[in-house]
């Protein structure tokens, strides 16, 4: 068992843990604004960790160990890095847009002591 396998499994396990936390927060929180807190933060980081894990696996097995691979296999890390940058910019913006729409339409925030909605 190579050391890179252990590192990749750690990244994937951490990513899945944060995704589960995000979805449990979506089910458990009592109000719309607090649910967006859970998914907007945990989803983004969980995704990025999983894709970083896959990127490390690809760089070790397909670029470092096989130097005669075709160029389109060696350029896959560029696509994955672009996907990571795009997710970091796009997910908070979409969260903010839907929260602004809810605030202007008049959805009332939840204070401590009220019932669930």
């Amino acid at each position: 068992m190579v050391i890179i396998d252990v590192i990749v499994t750690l990244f994937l396990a951490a990513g899945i843990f944060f995704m589960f936390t995000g979805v449990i927060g979506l089910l458990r929180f009592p109000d719309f604004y607090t649910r967006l807190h859970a998914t907007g933060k945990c989803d983004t980081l969980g995704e990025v960790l999983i894709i970083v894990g896959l990127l490390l696996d690809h760089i070790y097995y397909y670029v470092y160990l096989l130097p005669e691979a075709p160029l389109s296999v060696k350029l896959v890390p560029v696509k994955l890095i672009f996907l990571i940058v795009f997710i970091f910019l796009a997910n908070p913006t979409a969260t903010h847009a839907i929260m602004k729409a809810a605030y202007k339409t008049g959805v009332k925030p939840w204070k401590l002591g009220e019932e669930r909605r």
Partner: protein
Amino acid sequence: MIEVFLAIAVLIAFTILLSLYRAALGPGVFNRVAAVSVIGTKTIVLLVIIGYYFERPLFFDISLLYAILNFIGTLAFAKYLERGEVWS
């Protein structure tokens, strides 16, 4: 290493099933839009993992495209719900 990828893909599919509960139940339209955006985000990761599992490098491009589509779809929803029209 391939079995670890398959296990991660099954766990992601399970979280998609859990967030369908909020998409069906959530009182009002805003909870449903948030749940659909979450499902779209998880589909992007699922496509990359399937691309590694079945050894088809075409799926990375498809996941990049779907990330852009999901973002623009959520923005269009938010704009429509705020103003009543998308493009004046």
